[in-house]
């Protein structure tokens, strides 16, 4: 299962963090994120997109200045997670239109809502873009 998802820019600043199943205190999260991010940023394109950290396997992918890192347990298929990240980015792109870091910063709650449609309890429940965006778009209309 997926344990957490981080969005961190290349300066190492966290833009979004979502944890599943286990609840870590603020300090624990800070420490974990620091270590994970440091390791991630030190990797090069020539290396594979996975590494192990403590009990987690980290799968990451970079889009422009933003890194998406997903911590999973031993049971997950790394390639699938890698593609899941891409799928997520595609959904964001569809919603925001040419998504960029600033979109995510301005509307982090939307990113969370989208993620809630795709991932529940650390499981991938839906990757159908229409399904995912329907409630989100409905919500936006409700705002009007």
């Amino acid at each position, binding site marked *: 299962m997926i344990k957490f998802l981080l969005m961190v820019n290349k*300066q190492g*600043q*966290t*833009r*979004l*963090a*979502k944890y599943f*199943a286990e*609840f870590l205190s*603020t*300090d624990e*999260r*800070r420490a974990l994120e620091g270590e994970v991010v440091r390791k991630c940023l030190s990797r090069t394109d*020539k*290396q*594979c*997109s*996975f*590494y*192990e*950290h*403590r009990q987690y396997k980290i799968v990451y992918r970079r889009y422009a200045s933003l890194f998406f890192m997903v911590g999973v347990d031993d*049971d997950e*298929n*790394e*390639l*699938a997670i*890698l*593609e*899941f990240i891409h*799928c997520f980015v595609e959904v964001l792109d569809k919603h925001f239109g040419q998504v960029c870091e*600033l979109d995510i*910063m*301005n509307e*982090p*709650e939307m990113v*969370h*809502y989208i993620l*809630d*449609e795709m991932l*529940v*309890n650390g*499981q*991938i*429940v*839906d*990757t*159908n*873009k*229409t*399904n995912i965006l*329907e*409630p989100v778009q*409905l*919500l936006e209309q*409700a*705002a*009007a």
Partner: protein
Amino acid sequence: MQSKLEKVVAGLKTGPRFLKELREFDNLVKAIGECKSKAEEDRVISQEVELLKQRLSDPKLDKSRGKEYMVRLMYCDILGHDTSFAYVKALQFASDSNIHTKKAAYLALTQFLDYNNNLVLLLVNTLLLDMKSDNYLIVCTALVAATRLIGPDLVNAVYPVVVERLRHPNEHVRKKAVMALHWFGQLDPRREGALAGVELEKHFRTMLCDKAQVAWEPGGTHGRGVAQDPSVMSAALCALHDCIKLDPRPYKNLIPSFTSILKQVSEHRLPKTYDYHRFPAPFIQIKLLKILAALGAGDRSAAENMAAVLHQTLRRANTSHTIGSAIIYECVRTITTIYPNPQLLAAAAESIATFLRSTSHNLRYVGIDALAGITALNPSAAAEHQVAVLDCLEDPDDTLKLKTLELLYKMTKANNIQAGHGAGTRWGLVIVDKMMGYLGSCTDEHIRKDIVRKVCDLAERYAPSPAWFVTTISEVFRLGGEHVDEADGNRLVRLIAEQDASLHTSAVEAYLQLLDGESAAATAAPVGGGGGGAVPPPKGARRKKLPESILLVICWVLGEFGHLARRPPLAVLSRLVGILTAHKAASDRLRGCLLTALAKLAAHTGGAAGPVGQALLQKQGSHHNADGGGAAEVAELVHKCLNSQSLELQQRAHELQALLGCSPAVLAAALPVDASCEDFSPQDLEQVATLPFLEGHVARALAAGAAPYLPPEARGARAADGASKGLRFEAYEPAPYAIPLAAASTSYAAASVHDTRSSSAATAAPAAGGGAGPAAPQSAPSFAEPQLMIKTTGGRKWGPAQYETADYGGTSTSSSHGAPAATAPAAVAGAALSKSGGTHHSRSGSAASLTSQAPSERERLAASLFGGGSGGSGTTVISKPAPAGQRQVNGGAAVATAAVGPPPPQQRNPMDLLLDLDVPTPPPPQRPAGTATAGPPGQGITPPQLGGDWMDSLLHAPAGPAPPASSSLAGLEPARGGVGSFLGPATVSNGAGAMMYGMMQPLAPPQQQPGGMPPVMGMSGGMGLNVGMVPPPGGIMSPAPGHGPGLGIGMVGGPGAYGAAMPLQPQPQGWQSQQQQPMSGVMGGGMGLAAAPAAARGPQPLPLQSQRQADPFGDLLG
């Protein structure tokens, strides 16, 4: 956006203040975005937190901006700041009518709280209301919040509503409801807590099958009608997967459903919207494959049923896109998990070949992983990929390299089984080599630990020669010693001990070189007064310090075999002592091992007259041995240890000195050359176990009026009759001062026999009970004892019950001798059986004791004991085993029992030497009652079996089988005894942590300790003789309980300190769970030296148990 515009317009109308507030969020985002450093970011957020506190506490809070506040709070939280001030506000916003505010509030709460937070209680009502809302978005939001916030306590409040939502017309709601149930299921996976009796699975099955029908309607391109969305099925798959992982059996009947769904999915029969890069619903496929793997593992018929669909899935996926590779990879994982199917395996192997040939690191990574799965079933599969595998091994990418190492590790294991030892060995060596290389460069602690474990495992399995093993393991110690399991150290020592002299020599040389490297680094530093370069030189800094685990091994090896070194003994000595220069913070355990090693080295190189012996015995400050570099330090070390706060160190130091003062014959018997592997036959051990040599002693004790030994059962019966079962509240009577003092010699002998049977009060008066009283002068200190005991033992140990059960007549003799000042160690056996450390505290009776804590009492004691300055030679305490049964010395406290009878105890005591064998306290039951008496001098030695008394390693006369040695010792004793020093009662205490002065014991109420105690007792005198027997191989380090006798003894003698130590700690555990004792404890225990023959007990397993029941060990251990 539109609403924002409206607000701006509204803001323009209301004035500048509103506008300013409106821009707060944008300003925050901008500020965060512009931060250049973590510190700056923290400052921005701290300001934001202050601002939010102010805003949220404002009574005129603008509710319409609730969402914005929540988002700002989430920023603070994500960036690591405490937001607890706003939790209550968030709870309020959650019941807001505005859907945006509500959603944002729920989101914030799921980020801030976990289900154990009490605030969640306040939310339950809102949550339930929202789940029943007409707006499905709100229902979904509430259900998602439930997956984060509902804990076991609240499940039942929410469960019925969630189940109802499973029939909601909107598929989003159904999907979320399934996931909420999935969460509930995880809270109580076995359905034995909050969800006992709830059949979640039933719902999952319904949701799956229901939807599955949809899936197999061809042309399901439509969307929405009721019950027609594969996404709900997909959610149900997640839930079922977890149930199946837990226990696949009840779900076997779903296999046809799963295979059917997978078939249809892979045939593209789901709506196009589920496609991802033209692959049909890949994530659903992968989930299904995982489920099939769990269902087909080890189940032939299930595997056959799914073979066709697996084949199809594998064929339909392709590597044109990563997601296709992901499906293939998952297929391979499934194929290698289920009951093996040759065709599928062949297909899988082909797919893997593609991965391994790829230039993508990611694909090679999964290729290696998949290959590991296949080689587990078919070891030859890897052969064709050798080149690719080796490439991965050389790859600069750590992740890939690690994965490859793991593959190789798995392959070697498989190879060993299939291809015979030769191939396995070859692989094993290559891999060990690679792993070591990696270990040297890796810095991640988790990974290092893992590698160390694997290397040790492989090295042990494939070592081509002992020499290779020794070198390799030593290297592992050097590189990653902090992660080496203690057991590996033990194994290494054992292995070295079992080999011949040439290996011993090479091990010695190898270790000396290691130390050379260290001391070169250490001495390069300014060696200040007293030899302490505080700051290691750059070179030293670069070179890692040797970890303690390897130093312990080195100490043992150099002690045992140092005489084989090609360099002169003094050079070896200086290297050993150099360890302390390099490791200022060396633990007492290490120091103890070092002392023992020095003693052994001295014994093997000419004894007191040899160069090492001279160095050890020289007075501090007098360096008559100018050539030996370490001579000065040695003297200092010994001197420090003599006055150490650590009883064990004191004891060892005293033992060392005393032993070196003995005649060469005694020394040789005590520290035999290379005797660590001596063998005992079980018969020998059995014989020892009966303690034949104690008979005379017992007889004498009986004659003097001591009570006969009663087996514990009988004792229990007696206690049952009158005695109080509960706690006894009245105080013990003070010890009678009146007891006759042994006027005669300068030393006092205290021998008392307690008869516990007599009223409880009797305990206090040791002398009274036994006929022995008269004979044995009571030692002055004894009266002090009660107080001490209390302290040491801890209230619990005092329990009357224990008391009652205690044996009576325990005899303990402690001799204090007045040795010239420092020399005589008093014996104390502290057996600290404490769970934790198993440290023993022994106090030396000598003047040194003054240094220890508890000054006043101690001083008083010391004064009373030694004040007279007995002139005699230093003697130690010997405790004799009392009448057999007796041993139970006490309780948490130690009870000393008294010594025995004959009036002139002093003379008799057999060994004045250091030997202390403590009273074997242990298992009363076993010993035949009568046995114990010790007749002749020699008896001091207790048979190993008994307690661990002897732990003390050194001294141990050869216990059991070794009558000869003991006799020789015995012989000596008398002579010494003449000197008069010896007195009394030895004490043994085992209690937890109890330390006793020798004398004290008598007073102590004899409590019985739970059976456990015995082992440790032995601290006392000491260092002595190791009896060397080590049982055959296994013995040394491995406290395998099973071995019974052999082992126990083995420990003792063997590897001296190091090895021996191991058993100690475990004991406590051992008692409880006998067989497991093992080594774990070993290192931990402070006692490195003493080897407690934990194992000793082995032989008598049954009795043990019975004993245990009698007095629960638990008491001791707490």
